[in-house]
């Protein structure tokens, strides 16, 4: 019995030690004015090397919607995923939200970190961080905070603007930290006032393309004010039910002119500065457009980009998206397969502005439609006279990429005496007539890692040999702002000011036509292809779609124009709501003049035949229940409840 008491004693003693540990652990006081990093602020902001390191980590955390995700570009009608899983296309019906929910906590973590850094920069002095450095750091941090708020407001609408460092007092009552949502207009006004306050302080960065400079800040203002202007102009007219009574979502139409004027002024400041010019170094217009995005040295067009120069910091975009026939790894390809819808959005250079870019002489896979076929001598002839930007953005049949043939051919058509009959084979197979049966690059209707649309990406694919191998990180940069967009922003603002009849804005259409014509000239159109007489909103919208495709614009553009629910109406019989494919075939009919010519069939891409169905609640992201659990003052978005 004695021994049992001994065990009790030992057990009891061990319990005591446990409770003691626990008590100390829970009673530790967090140092709330320091970041969670092990290095305290007093060390960071007095040592320039450390300060630059922290600053670059803030840059790396800025929101971007492209290289990070495989499927982000497939959300609209610009592309379909043909990647390693069909799941990448499940958002086609959009459901409640499309891939940009639940960033609330991430964004506020970043905003708080910036507020903490700003607090430390203004309270801690000394070391080798000079006052001029501090001024620049503060301007850069405030810029990044504005950039995060811009990304926030275009997804969620108005959010609480927090500019001070919030510190919890451990009183058990956090209500004094809980802020209600600001209005959507207030968030855009905040971005505008921040850019105005800091633009001049960013001048020391003007030589840099990866640190934000004065013109990059103006480019944010140019874009953000344009977004605000178009929401003000279109929300009341086209989607009046997408608004909240308190203005957290929706901007009154009376503010449209003011926002457009601010956007126009910012665009003018960039255009008239003479610092940037359009990239026009390569006489081959298609290649020139590809170089414009991918060439880093001597690029006069790029204003600000996310660069990936630190070894290991790059992305794997080429691995996911390289054209199948030229892939260097034994896996992957086609995560973003451009749609025929986008290809047809590129106009013909020899037709008037605004004419249809529909490809000529296509069938649709049925016997009756074979009467429409044009028999093309070369695969690429169907794309003759197209906007040169088509070549710069999209890899289409008959062209080379990275020095190799793209080899895109779905199959062959043979003559059975009364009609043509199609047949297809394995990738890279040869027909009995000695010619190609199915190309190494497909397309195939529904096979993983083969294009389901008949097209591959050219833009954003790293031209470096070996860059599409697994584990090889790409250093191709992600261009955030470039002069081409500034031209489009200026054109749209000038056009809308003229339409809205703002005082002193007559001639806005002439200016808009000049800007657009300038961009189109670079793409092979004749001079003055758009004039004040023929410029329309659809022309402007289409120009923006083709110039900026795959640069993370289309989704936000169709949202702010409030046309998403009209073009993606969920109906299988509405062409704009469905993603189309173009499958090319070789004619195998020895002895006939059409032998070895090429024909094309066009149909809804079989990989995902759901029509895109944009609902009114998709204009703004859902606010997660956990956000409301933490802060009951947050109002939900329209149609969320």
């Amino acid at each position, binding site marked *: 019995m004695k021994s049992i008491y001994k065990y009790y004693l030992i057990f009891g003693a061990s319990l005591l030690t446990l409770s003691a540990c626990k008590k100390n652990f829970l009673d530790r006081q967090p140092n709330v004015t320091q970041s969670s990093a092990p290095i305290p602020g007093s060390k960071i902001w007095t040592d320039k090397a450390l300060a630059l390191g922290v600053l670059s980590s803030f840059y790396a955390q800025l929101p971007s919607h492209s290289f990070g995700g495989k499927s982000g570009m497939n959300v609209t009608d610009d592309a379909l995923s043909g990647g390693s899983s069909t799941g990448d296309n499940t958002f086609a*019906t959009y459901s409640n939200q499309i891939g940009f929910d639940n960033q609330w906590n991430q964004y506020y973590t970043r905003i708080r970190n910036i507020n903490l850094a700003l607090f430390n920069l203004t309270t801690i002095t000394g070391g080798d961080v000079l006052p001029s450095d501090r001024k620049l750091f503060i301007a850069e941090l405030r810029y990044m905070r504005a950039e995060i708020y811009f990304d926030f407001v275009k997804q969620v609408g108005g959010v609480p603007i927090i500019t001070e460092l919030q510190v919890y007092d451990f009183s058990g009552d956090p209500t004094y930290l809980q802020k209600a949502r600001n209005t959507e207009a207030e968030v855009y006004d905040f971005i505008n006032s921040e850019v105005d306050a800091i633009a001049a302080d960013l001048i020391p960065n003007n030589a840099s393309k990866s640190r934000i400079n004065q013109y990059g800040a103006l480019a944010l203002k140019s874009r953000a004010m344009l977004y605000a202007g178009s929401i003000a102009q279109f929300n009341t007219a086209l989607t009046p039910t997408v608004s909240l009574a308190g203005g957290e979502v929706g901007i009154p139409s009376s503010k449209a002119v003011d926002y457009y004027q601010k956007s126009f002024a910012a665009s003018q400041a960039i255009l008239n500065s003479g610092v940037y010019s359009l990239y026009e170094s390569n006489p081959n217009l298609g290649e020139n457009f590809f170089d414009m995005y991918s060439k880093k040295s001597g690029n006069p067009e790029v204003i600000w980009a996310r660069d990936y120069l630190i070894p290991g910091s790059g992305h794997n975009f080429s691995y996911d998206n390289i054209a199948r026939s030229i892939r260097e790894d034994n896996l992957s390809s086609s995560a973003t397969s451009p749609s025929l819808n986008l290809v047809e959005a590129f106009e013909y250079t020899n037709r008037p502005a605004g004419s249809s870019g529909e490809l000529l002489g296509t069938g*649709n896979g049925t016997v009756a439609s074979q009467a429409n076929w044009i028999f093309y001598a070369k695969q690429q002839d169907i794309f003759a006279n197209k906007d040169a930007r088509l070549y710069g953005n999209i890899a289409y049949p008959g062209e080379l990429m990275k020095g190799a043939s793209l080899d895109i051919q779905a199959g062959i058509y043979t003559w059975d005496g009364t009609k043509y009959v199609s047949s297809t084979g394995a990738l890279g197979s040869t027909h009995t007539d000695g010619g190609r049966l199915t190309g190494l690059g497909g397309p195939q209707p529904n096979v993983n890692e083969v294009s389901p649309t008949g097209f591959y990406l050219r833009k954003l694919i790293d031209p470096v040999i070996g860059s599409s191998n697994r584990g090889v990180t790409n250093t191709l940069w992600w261009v955030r702002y470039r002069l081409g967009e500034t031209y489009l922003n200026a054109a749209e603002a000038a056009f809308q000011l003229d339409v809205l009849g703002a005082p002193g804005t007559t001639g806005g259409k002439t200016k808009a036509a000049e800007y657009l014509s300038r961009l189109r000239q670079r793409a092979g159109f004749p001079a003055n292809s758009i004039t004040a007489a023929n410029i329309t909103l659809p022309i402007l919208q289409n120009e923006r779609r083709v110039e900026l495709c795959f640069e993370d614009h289309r989704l936000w553009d169709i949202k702010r124009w409030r046309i998403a629910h009209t073009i993606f109406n969920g109906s*299988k*019989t509405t062409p704009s709501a469905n993603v189309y494919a173009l499958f090319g075939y070789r004619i195998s009919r020895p002895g006939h003049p059409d032998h070895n010519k090429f024909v094309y069939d066009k149909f809804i891409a079989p990989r995902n035949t759901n029509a895109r169905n944009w609902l*009114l*609640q998709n204009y703004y992201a859902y606010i997660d229940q956990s956000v409301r659990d933490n802060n009951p003052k947050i109002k939900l978005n329209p149609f969320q409840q």
Partner: protein
Amino acid sequence: MKISSYIAAVAVVSLLAACVKKDNFDPPSSILSGRIVQLGTTTPLGVRANLDAQNMLELRQRGFPLFTPIGVYVKQDGSFSASLYDGDYKLTRASRGPWVANTDTINVTVKGATTVDVPVVPHQTVSGFTVAVSGTKPAYVFTATFTLKQVSTVVVDQARFFIGKTNIVDISNAIANASKNATALGAFTNGSLTTTIAVNMPTPTSTPAFYYNKNYVYGRVGVKAKDIGEYTYSDVLKITLP
């Protein structure tokens, strides 16, 4: 010594057993079922088939630290069911449905099999839906005749007649459709309007042949109010091809 080790062993085993017991709940066994009906009637409201994914109805239960809703799946005929634990629930109707926004809570006490009808005020309703087939194979023309009734104050935006190949028919699941906008529909008389919409069978050149091997299709009519995202639908009719 021997006794004490038995005691220890029993204690450890019973502790383990207790833990296992605590982590395992019985699955919910009570079924809450019902329909979405027009307020003041027992007429169920037809909705879009995958409206289920939209969580048009949500259940919440008080008494827990977090207030995360349980989404309730709704079928295209407006009926729904959910497996739940017995208890008191708050049922809410989402404002994004094809009805007048009303976030008032419906208190539901679930005990065993429970039935509840969820009343909503649709903007318009569709009734008296019939279809006439004319033409010869394959160039059929379907003509829908139906009556729209104005219920709320929101004006009509358009009515649409859908043809589907399965008995799930709505804007996302149709092989052909035709619409009439508010102007083409004309004015309502005493809140009621009877009209027709004709739609052609899609031509064989644009649609795979297997539609033509069947001798039936399905039809349904939907009506949408201005600036409202969803349609209110009629019943689905099976249309036999002559």
